[in-house]
């Protein structure tokens, strides 16, 4: 199997697994328990919190553990919206967000908040002047993703943060696809809230972090005990937290060198695709992108057909995001970038990772050449 779907999920790093095992076997105590056995688990959680704070450059008390990137996004949006309800009810986001943000925004709209969905240009980037113009006196939250899951395009989040902090508006960024892939540390992006997830950076599934800068107004969404500074009730997923800490240490340590390696492989992939297949388009190619992601449109054929044909050859790629593969609607991200429905329907996402080698890229390109040729022979769309 050649796995080129690392934006969907990554394999668990063996060191993360090794760190987790004791907390799944013998050290299964509850961190909230008042005895030494519970305290052992508590210490593991707090050590992990400190370690992650070191990796992402923030204070330990600014880290809130959640069950998923989606939950972290929900806590950021709903938590800030609720905390600032008396100050205003306007939220600004973009048309290209992950569904975790997009559908949460829609839910907030149905609860009486006003939401502005900023467009992006053809390269997939939000324009700062459009953002500035969208801010109103009752704007309480701006939420703009760092790197897009489908195209890898990176938003100028530091510049966005400079603008929102000047205007005194809380900024959240979904950094699920950038954390550990870019050398930038989530705690230094300038945002007040940052989400990232364990299983996208070779940690376990079922664990994520919401970084909450000190003094950011936010209310809990899941209530119960006083876990996570009262922001997220529920017994901690101790083993996963420990695994995430280990995985994050490794990911940020190697982000620079691994990023260079992946960028070279991604460039090799795109060079070969463009030179050996006619009528293709690399989406977001002119923008800054995370180094592992490539989104390509093939004229006249359907992306899901390409995915299945490659799957038959033992190659895992994806159309758009993993969450929407059963949804026949073309990608909202590509449509927002100005692609027509047919170009969007003919797109696939290839996301490289630590096991990816040059030979995998070459094998994939040769499979792609055959697949695209075969599907174009079947296609009713004329191909001249």
């Amino acid at each position: 199997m050649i796995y080129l779907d690392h934006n969907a999920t990554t394999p668990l790093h063996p060191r993360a697994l090794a760190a987790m095992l004791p907390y799944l076997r013998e050290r299964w105590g509850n961190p909230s328990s008042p005895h030494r056995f519970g305290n052992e688990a508590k210490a593991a959680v707090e050590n992990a919190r400190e370690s992650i704070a070191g990796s992402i450059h923030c204070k330990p008390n600014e880290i809130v553990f959640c069950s998923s990137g989606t939950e972290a996004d929900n806590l950021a949006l709903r938590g800030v919206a609720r905390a600032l309800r008396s100050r205003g009810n306007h939220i600004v986001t973009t048309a290209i967000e992950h569904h975790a943000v997009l559908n949460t925004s829609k839910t907030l709209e149905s609860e009486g908040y006003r939401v502005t969905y900023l467009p992006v240009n053809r390269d997939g980037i939000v324009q700062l002047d459009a953002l500035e113009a969208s801010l109103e006196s009752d704007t309480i939250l701006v939420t703009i993703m760092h790197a897009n899951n489908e195209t890898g395009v990176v938003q100028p989040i530091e510049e966005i943060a400079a603008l929102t902090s000047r205007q005194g508006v809380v900024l959240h960024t979904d950094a699920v696809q950038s954390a550990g892939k870019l050398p930038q540390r989530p705690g230094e992006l300038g945002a007040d809230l940052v989400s990232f997830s364990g299983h996208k950076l070779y940690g376990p599934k079922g664990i994520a972090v919401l970084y909450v800068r000190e003094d950011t107004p936010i209310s809990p969404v899941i209530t119960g005990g006083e876990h996570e500074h009262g922001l997220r009730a529920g017994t901690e997923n101790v083993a996963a937290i420990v695994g995430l800490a280990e995985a994050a240490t490794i990911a940020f340590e190697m982000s620079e060198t691994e990023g260079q390696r992946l960028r070279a492989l991604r460039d090799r992939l795109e060079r070969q695709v463009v030179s050996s297949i006619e009528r293709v388009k690399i989406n977001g190619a002119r923008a800054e992108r995370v180094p592992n992601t490539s989104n390509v449109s093939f004229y006249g054929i359907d992306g899901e057909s390409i995915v299945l044909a490659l799957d038959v050859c033992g190659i895992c790629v994806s159309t758009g995001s993993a969450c929407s593969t059963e949804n026949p609607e073309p990608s909202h991200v590509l449509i927002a970038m100005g692609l027509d429905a047919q170009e969007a329907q003919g797109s696939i996402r290839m996301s490289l990772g630590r096991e990816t080698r040059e030979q995998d890229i070459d094998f994939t390109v040769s499979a792609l050449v055959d697949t695209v040729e075969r599907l174009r022979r079947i296609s009713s769309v004329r191909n001249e």
Partner: protein
Amino acid sequence: MHMFNRSKSQKKPKPAYAGPVLYYNDLVIDHFSNPRNVGEMPDDESNGFGLVGDPSCGDQMKLWIKVESGRIDKVAFKSFGCPGAIATSSMLTALVERKTIEEALCVTDDDVIEALGGIPEKKKHCSLLGVKALRAAIADWQSRQTDDKGKSAGS
């Protein structure tokens, strides 16, 4: 890391299908990988044509038939669409080849799906195109029988 079994010499990929892929069964994968009756039929070789769908808003299918003494002598299709659309189109052509027009008109979406051993619920709408295109092609053939105007592509 050694997460994956990667043979040292990776040669030209061939569809070495082993086990269920995505959420389609083996027969669907077979009709997707080796679709029957793919192609275009030139005007002098066909006497019925159907075009359904719109590639600007989803799938599209073109279907040609050659009717001889009330029987579908030859059928060919081309399709822009998902694996379900390609496989159901292929199976439809296999089902109606050599059938009389009356028999062919009785073939339904459910017949195609049943012949394929089922397709995922969310993909069932894809199978609609094939039957629609066939009926359009038959209507086109019928209109060519009654008046001899020639081409009138159904939709």
